[in-house]
């Protein structure tokens, strides 16, 4: 694994003065690059002047304590919430021009699960951009939606009302909808939050398969104990960018301590990041 497009910096308190540390270069082989992104609710920034580069053909985790702006960074990059400042490039293009290459899996809790729709309808939402306003869903597309459902192990549930699903099943359906988009960059907001062990396994298998196909995956992640198993690249954030790089070099005790402050017990940290050498 060589996803090291960026050099490892020691826990930089990035851009104390609002200065951009390394402007995102719009390179075509970089799936996602954000530069100088600031998001603020009122006067207190939730994400402050963040630069980040997420590598190709890799699984990246955005990590940080609660309220550190992990999800906010993702949503701001996508334009779901407005950015106060900053630019976002997807495969070298401004994000607005590369929408069809992005698939997004929002947090499960963000929608009303009593909405009158079936599982297969939700997956087909991933095809709406391709179908357009007036087009009919062709048999080919319907088969495709069903196939995506099958990949997450939910084909038997196609005709169920979404309200009848368990939390883990809901999350799988959201992933299937993203798969239907056939994107090159997958952005997931806490995909493992509140799901059962079988679902976590199923999701990680699908994501690893995507990586093997050469796609890039970026996930907001909260479970530090699985970072080493699941991810190649980490981005540590606590309002500001704290560190980023390959898991082996950036997921270190020092970086975690800098990111989480006093909120992690030191012994716990040692277990989490027994770094090879360095």
């Amino acid at each position: 694994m060589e996803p090291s497009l960026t050099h490892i910096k020691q826990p930089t308190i990035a851009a104390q003065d609002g200065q951009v540390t390394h402007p995102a270069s719009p390179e075509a082989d970089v799936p996602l690059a954000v530069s100088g992104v600031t998001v603020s609710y009122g006067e207190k920034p939730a994400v402050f002047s963040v630069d980040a580069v997420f590598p190709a053909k890799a699984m990246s985790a955005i990590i940080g304590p609660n309220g550190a702006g992990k999800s906010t960074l993702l949503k701001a990059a996508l334009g779901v919430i407005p950015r106060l400042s900053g630019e976002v490039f997807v495969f070298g293009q401004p994000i607005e021009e590369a929408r069809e290459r992005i698939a997004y899996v929002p947090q499960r809790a963000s929608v009303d699960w009593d909405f009158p729709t079936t599982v297969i309808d939700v997956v087909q939402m991933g095809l709406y951009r391709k179908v357009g306003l007036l087009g009919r869903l062709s048999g080919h597309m319907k088969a495709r939606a069903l196939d995506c459902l099958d990949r997450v192990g939910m084909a038997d549930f196609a005709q169920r009302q979404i309200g009848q699903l368990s939390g883990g099943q809901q999350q799988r359906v959201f992933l299937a909808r993203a798969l239907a988009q056939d994107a090159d960059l997958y952005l997931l907001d806490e995909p493992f939050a509140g799901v059962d062990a079988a679902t976590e396994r199923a999701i990680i298998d699908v994501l690893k398969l995507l990586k093997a196909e050469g796609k890039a995956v970026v996930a907001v992640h909260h479970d530090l104990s699985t970072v080493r198993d699941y991810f190649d690249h980490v981005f540590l954030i606590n309002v500001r960018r704290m560190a980023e790089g390959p898991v082996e070099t950036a997921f270190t005790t020092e970086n975690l301590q800098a990111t989480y402050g006093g909120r992690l017990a030191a012994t716990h940290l040692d277990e989490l990041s027994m770094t090879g050498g360095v």
Partner: protein
Amino acid sequence: MNPFLDALLLQAGYNAALVAIGAALLGFAAGSSGTFLFLRKRALVSDAVAHATLPGVGIAFIVMVSLGGDGRSLIGLLLGSAITAWIGLLLIEWIARHTRLAEDAAIGAVLGVFFGAGIVLLTIIQSMSAGRQAGLEGFLLGSTAGMLFQDAVIIAIGGSLAVLATWLLRRPMTLVAFDSEYAAAMGYDVRRIDLLMMGLVMAVTVIGLKLVGLILIVAMLIIPAVTARFWTERSNRVIWIAGAVGGVSGYLGAVLSASAPALPTGPLIVLVAAGIFVFSLLFAPVRGVLAAVIRHRRFQARVHRRQGLLALAAQHPIREAYTLRLLRREGLVRADGVPTETGRAQAAKIARDERRWDIAREVHQDVGLTGRYDGLTPIEDVFTADEIADFDHRLGGPIAVGDL
């Protein structure tokens, strides 16, 4: 002969027939285009928008009179009402977006202020040109007296366009109503789609003003969609069922008011819709109250049956009266509480299944299967006969002991 039947068959005169057809068309348009309003949970915005039409009616009247007209051109009045309704809508959007006030506060403020301004304008009009303003108050609660063919045509054309637009925009509107974050991430302009949806609702409101009035139009937009939700789990079908509920309500409401001329049309339409709503609330097959009660009772019976049989198997006394009654009714215990032959057999089966589940949890790694244990799902539904035979083998009986 019978005034209700005459009206129902459109035999109660030209005006009554025109009103009935117009109300049915309006009901259909309002029901279907109100679907996404309900699914997006923005029903009350439409109430504010409806109230914001009133100053537009007044201003349009004053402008037309000052230009030398008689001020009663329906097109002109509707145009005026549409303009102030749109301003009201944009104001609500702006307040919710740019101030710390929540949308409900914005709705309350806009509704009150615009309606107040409208009433003031109507009062001024009354004093400035006696006689000619007759009919403007009709916009409050609707009036069917003197409905013209041209009025019905406006409803037919406007209503058809609204239904067509709802159908064409169903995908983006579904997406935004279900998952607006995802819609935004896919590059849809959520704000524009919301405005389009409200624009549709506003158009229906404006064409329905004269017939139903601005105070009750919100009911025609929302009640059919809420009613339709009881009968289907798919948003596309909600559109058509809501349209049908609205259409039937409009027609029956108009027919009722034609057969009892002292009663107002708009309120009757709303009451008919409410009647269909209450019926659906009670009797809809899955989501209805009755269905929920039956489901709950059945579940309760299954729980008590299992509890009772386990008690029989363990030879514990059954104390709950409901459990005893249940077992007695099924012929599992006699009147004196002693288990019958079948009762003993069933109890033995349930006790054995519990032990099978224990084994299943030990040997099976697949949480997806063992996770389905709830004490009520029959083990045969989860595992194959071979697997169950395997559990029985591991469970060991007299035979297994003999094997040792």
